[in-house]
C-alpha cells in the first residue's frame, strides 16, 4: 500500500474503538505504574491503581467485553474523589472524557447512539485545539509573545532552570507562540481531507511531544493520542 493510500484510509467505528482501547490500556497502565512507584500509598489508593492495571491488561487483551472500560470509568471517578479533582489536570480530564464516551458507546442501544458518543469525543478533541488557540489569539499578551515568555520565565512548568533562558529569546518565542496559535486555530479545517487530518494529527503529536520535553507533560502526549482514532473515524464518517 502506498503512503498516500494509507493516509487516505479511514476507520470503522469498531476499529476506532479497538485502537482507542489498546492505546488507553497503555496510557492508563503508564499512569498507574507512576502512582505506584511513588510508594507510601494508602491501601485504598494502592488497590485502585492495581485494579486499574488489571483492567488495562483486560482491555489490551480484549477480555471481558466492555467491563474493563466501565471498570476504568468507575475507578476514574474514585480517583477524582480521592484527589478532589484531577491529579494531572487536562490529561486526567481527557482520560475520563474518553472513558465516558467509550462507556456510553458500549451502553448505546443502537448504532446511531454509539456513533453519537464517538462523535462527541471527536468534536471535543477538535475543540481542545481550537478553543486553546482562540483563548490565546484574543489575548494581547499571547499575540505580543510576552505570555509565552512568562511561561518560560516564572511558571512552574519548565523542567530545568536552563530552559528559563529561553525567555530571553524573544523573537524565537514570538514565532513559536504564533505557530502554536495558528496551528490550533486551523486544526478543525483538517477534517475536510483525510490526508490533511493525518498530517495535522502528526503535527499535534509533535506539539504534545515538545510540551512533554519542555514542561514534563508526558501524560498529555499519550492520552491525546488515545483519542485520535475517534477523529479519524469521524472524518471518514462525516466528510
Amino acid at each position, binding site marked *: 500500500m502506498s503512503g498516500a493510500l494509507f493516509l487516505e484510509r479511514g476507520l470503522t467505528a469498531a476499529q476506532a474503538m479497538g485502537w482507542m482501547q489498546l492505546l488507553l490500556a497503555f496510557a492508563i497502565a503508564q499512569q498507574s505504574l507512576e502512582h505506584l512507584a511513588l510508594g507510601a500509598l494508602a491501601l485504598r489508593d494502592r488497590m485502585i491503581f492495581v485494579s486499574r492495571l488489571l483492567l488495562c491488561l483486560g482491555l489490551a487483551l480484549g477480555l471481558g467485553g466492555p467491563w474493563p472500560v466501565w471498570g476504568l470509568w468507575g475507578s476514574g471517578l474514585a480517583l*477524582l474523589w480521592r484527589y*478532589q479533582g484531577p491529579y494531572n489536570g487536562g490529561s486526567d480530564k481527557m482520560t475520563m472524557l474518553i472513558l465516558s464516551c467509550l462507556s456510553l458507546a458500549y451502553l448505546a442501544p443502537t448504532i446511531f447512539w454509539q456513533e453519537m458518543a464517538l462523535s462527541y469525543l471527536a468534536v471535543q478533541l477538535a475543540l481542545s485545539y481550537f478553543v*486553546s488557540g482562540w*483563548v490565546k489569539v484574543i489575548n494581547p499578551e499571547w499575540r505580543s509573545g510576552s505570555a509565552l515568555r512568562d511561561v518560560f520565565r516564572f511558571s512552574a512548568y519548565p523542567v530545568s*532552570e536552563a530552559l528559563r533562558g529561553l525567555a530571553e529569546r524573544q523573537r524565537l518565542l514570538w514565532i513559536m507562540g504564533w505557530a502554536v496559535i495558528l496551528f490550533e486555530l486551523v486544526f478543525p479545517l483538517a477534517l475536510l481531507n483525510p490526508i490533511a487530518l493525518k498530517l495535522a494529527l502528526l503535527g499535534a503529536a509533535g506539539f504534545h511531544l515538545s510540551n512533554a520535553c519542555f514542561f514534563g507533560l508526558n501524560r498529555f502526549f499519550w492520552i491525546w493520542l488515545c483519542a485520535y482514532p475517534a477523529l479519524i473515524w469521524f472524518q471518514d464518517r462525516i466528510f
Partner: protein
Amino acid sequence: MLRLISLFLPTVFPSWRFFKTVAPSPRIEYRLIEPGQSEAYAVGGWQEDRPRPQHLRLGQMLRWMLWNPQWNEQLYLVSCAERLIEAPSQHSIDEINRRVARLLPQGSQALQFRLVFLSREGAQVVKLVEYESTPVLLAQLQEGPA
C-alpha cells in the same frame, strides 16, 4: 454526591482553555521547627520543595516521556497550591504536608510550609507569600501513607 458530580462534569464538558493567561505561579517552600518551640526556632530558613535541576539532557527528557512520577507529583502539588488559595480545604493542606514530609529525613521537628506566588509586574518578576501553614510534627506526617 453533588460534590462528586461537580468533580465529574468538567471532565465531560471541558473548557480546554489551556494557558488562557499566565497566572501567578506557586512555589512550595518549607522549614523545620524545633519541637515545642515557636517559629523563631526554625532550623535554617525557608527552602524550596523539589527545586528543578539546572540542566536536563535530551536523553533524560525523552526518558521522561515514559517515566516521570516525581514530576507529575510536583505538578499535582502545584494544583493543590492553587486550590488552597482559590478554595481552601484541609485536603490540599494534608496533601502538601504529607508529600513534602515524605521526601525529608525522619526527625523530631515540626514541618511548616508556605506558598509563594511568582508573577510579573512590569519587567520584574515579584514574589508574594500568600499562605503559611500551621506547623505539624514531621513524625506524625511520615508515619502514615501519603
